[in-house]
């Protein structure tokens, strides 16, 4: 028989870590809330049973305030998993139990996995598991998902509950409200019993939701007018007696119950200080004056290490391997096998020149992702969102936009998707338009190539400045668009700051490898195909004749046609124009194109040859304007697809990419022309 277990819990309580431990997956885990936007599914085979495990998005309650709450609630109500494993952060038990009380009210089989017990033990606090289980009326199992402890016990208990729940009625929740509220609850339960049964919902939970005036549930039940009127009378009566709205009365009742449970089952060690280590660190890193300078300093240090000695050494190593050893061996092999000239050129100039020019940067990209993962896993990135929220709110933007933007430093496509967490439609559209301004990993090879060719002495600072430029352009664009097209108040942003944690080396290497591997896969598939097509287009004319000079090729004709657009920006050469054109597919292709056009695989013993070739038609100022343009213009086909899907409108999608490309042109124009006014070259 197969079972379905759903994992539910507050944001950042370790659900995805638990999911990965159970299923053996490597789903992305971040030490910040909101990583899981959609539900994820995995399979596990435990105790000779087939188990489907569903990781639901992090939620604080089952009230339909946010997209995540609606997704999670609808899944539990409609899909009816055999067991809901409620992951509770034991180090923050009071807040986490609020969701637990609601899950228990649903009348579905629940097992509480008391996660992060290692933190509780380190703090010296004690939790009486037996007592907690008795008071909640559900089994409680201790665990520490990040250390892989307790997972077996959680699964075993969940399986027992799943098997028992199939034959035994689920126990009535222990939570009892004030007598007047209970009386009203009974009345409403009687009124809606038939309608709740029709949907297989638990009567008491439905009654509570109706008293809370939950519109989603009202809509689903489709109650007749007379029943609705009776419920409204109950609500009016309660609000009159308690002098408060029913939603608050019910929430108060839950919190009172939780306070009683915690008082009985949890014993906290008296440390004498109310500040935790995280609080003490936050006093410095989120300080009003020092927060942003500290954030900038941290990022600059990351870039300094990545693009400094360590990064250069890795580039030299891979460069030698790809452009010397591999290209040399392939070239000799092809010659020995009697390959035609065109095939030799296709493999060496096209594939090695294109794919190889990307591969040399993979180690540096992995180093950067290692440090990014370090900042994320430690909990610092969540602080970055908090710091930016404070700055953004002053400008009328919501800090919640910053989370998709942070994801945008990895890849724009999922970052655009992550905007689903924004409830306000205007903020959402605005964030979708701004997110691609964050410099994604695919743009990195462009900066690395131009940084090494033109800014060898201060490469890390120049690349860092490009990242900052993206953030600044996003903020300025945000202010302009907020004052024109997207007028309105910024939605409030509530974000829980997770405690600082020492990241595990394993976790950091998994993050680094996942992203590095993705680059390698992309290089072997999309970039490979693009390289073949680009080589074809730079070798043949429109009449499919081989050309001597690439300027007469298909690419050459296209390049010459569009080059005048970029002339005012300083890079009016047809080769740079073609690189921008092919970069529409994916940003790495910009570098691959330049590698092919300059015959990297053929003429270059290492990428220094490419640097020299670029120096014939770029100056440092032109190179910087080019880097800025590639940062800001049309993101790539994949991000375009994500934007179309999320905006659900051709008009808005075309406006977004048009706006981005327009801004890119203006910024590059300003950099080049203002730079020239100041005598820069």
């Amino acid at each position, binding site marked *: 028989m197969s079972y379905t277990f759903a994992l539910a819990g507050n944001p950042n309580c370790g659900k995805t870590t638990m999911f990965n431990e159970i299923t053996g997956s490597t789903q*992305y885990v971040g030490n910040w809330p909101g990583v899981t936007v959609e539900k*994820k599914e995995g399979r596990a085979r435990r105790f000779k049973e087939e188990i489907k495990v569903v990781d639901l998005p992090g939620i604080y309650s089952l009230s339909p305030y946010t997209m995540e709450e609606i997704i999670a609630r609808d899944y539990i109500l409609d899909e009816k998993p055999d067991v809901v494993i409620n992951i509770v952060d034991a180090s923050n038990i009071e807040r986490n139990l609020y969701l637990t009380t609601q899950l228990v009210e649903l009348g579905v089989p629940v097992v509480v996995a008391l996660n992060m017990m290692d933190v509780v033990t380190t703090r010296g606090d004690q939790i009486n598991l037996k007592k907690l289980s008795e008071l909640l009326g559900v089994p409680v199992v201790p665990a520490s998902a990040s250390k892989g402890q307790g997972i077996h016990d959680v699964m075993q208990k969940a399986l027992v509950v799943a098997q028992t729940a199939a034959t035994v009625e689920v126990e009535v929740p222990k939570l009892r409200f004030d007598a007047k509220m209970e009386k009203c609850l009974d009345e409403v339960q009687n009124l809606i019993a038939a309608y709740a049964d029709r949907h297989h919902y638990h009567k008491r939970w439905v009654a509570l939701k109706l008293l809370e005036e939950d519109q989603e549930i009202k809509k689903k039940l489709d109650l007749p007018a007379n029943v609705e009127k009776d419920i409204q009378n109950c609500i009016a009566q309660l609000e009159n007696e308690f002098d408060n709205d029913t939603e608050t009365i019910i929430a108060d009742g839950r919190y009172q119950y939780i306070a009683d449970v915690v008082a009985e089952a949890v014993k906290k060690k008296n440390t004498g200080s109310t500040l935790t280590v995280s609080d003490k660190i936050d006093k410095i890193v989120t300080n009003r004056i020092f927060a942003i300078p500290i954030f900038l300093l941290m990022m600059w240090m990351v870039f300094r290490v990545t693009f400094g000695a360590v990064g250069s050494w890795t580039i030299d190593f891979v460069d030698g391997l790809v452009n010397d050893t591999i290209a040399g061996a392939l070239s000799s092999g092809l010659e020995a096998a009697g390959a*035609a000239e065109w095939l030799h050129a296709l*493999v060496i100039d096209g594939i090695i020149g294109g794919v190889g020019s990307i591969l040399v940067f993979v180690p540096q990209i992995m180093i950067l992702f290692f440090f990014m993962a370090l900042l994320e896993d430690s909990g610092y990135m969540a602080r970055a969102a908090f710091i930016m929220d404070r700055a953004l709110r002053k400008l009328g933007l919501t800090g919640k936009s910053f989370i998709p933007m942070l994801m945008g430093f990895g890849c724009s496509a*999922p970052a655009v998707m992550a905007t689903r967490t924004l409830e306000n439609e205007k903020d959402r559209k605005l964030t979708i338009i701004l997110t691609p301004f964050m410099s994604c990993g695919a743009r990195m090879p462009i900066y690395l190539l131009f940084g090494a060719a033109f800014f060898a002495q201060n490469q890390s600072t120049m690349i860092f400045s490009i990242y900052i430029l993206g953030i600044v352009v996003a903020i300025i664009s945000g202010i302009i668009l907020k004052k024109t097209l997207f007028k309105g108040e910024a939605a409030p942003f509530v974000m829980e700051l997770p405690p600082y944690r020492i990241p595990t080396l394993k976790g950091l290497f998994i993050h680094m490898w*996942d992203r590095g591997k993705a680059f390698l*896969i992309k290089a072997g598939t999309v970039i490979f195909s693009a390289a*073949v097509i680009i080589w074809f287009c730079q070798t043949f004319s429109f009449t499919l004749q081989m050309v001597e000079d690439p300027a007469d090729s298909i690419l050459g004709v296209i390049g010459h046609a569009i080059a005048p657009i970029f002339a005012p920006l300083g890079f009016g050469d047809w080769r740079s124009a073609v690189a921008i054109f092919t970069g529409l597919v994916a940003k790495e292709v910009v570098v691959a194109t330049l590698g092919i056009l300059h015959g990297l695989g053929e003429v270059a013993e290492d990428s220094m040859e490419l640097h020299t070739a670029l120096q014939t038609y770029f100056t440092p100022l032109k190179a910087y304007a080019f880097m800025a343009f590639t940062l800001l213009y049309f993101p790539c086909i994949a991000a375009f697809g994500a934007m179309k*899907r999320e905006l659900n409108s051709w008009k808005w999608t075309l406006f977004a990419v048009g706006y981005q490309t327009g801004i890119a042109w203006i910024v590059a124009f300003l950099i080049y022309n203002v730079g020239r006014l100041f005598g820069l070259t």
Partner: protein
Amino acid sequence: MINYILGGLIAAFTIYIIVRQIKKLKAGQCSCGHDCPGCAGQCGTEKKE
């Protein structure tokens, strides 16, 4: 002979990748298996079931 074999293989692989990418974009599905189109796993996640 090698010209036909290797050239054919490269052409076939290129066409296969292009068709696969177009299908994924149309389906709104990413190369990493997620519902987002085309990040090829750069989101740092991998879908394994």
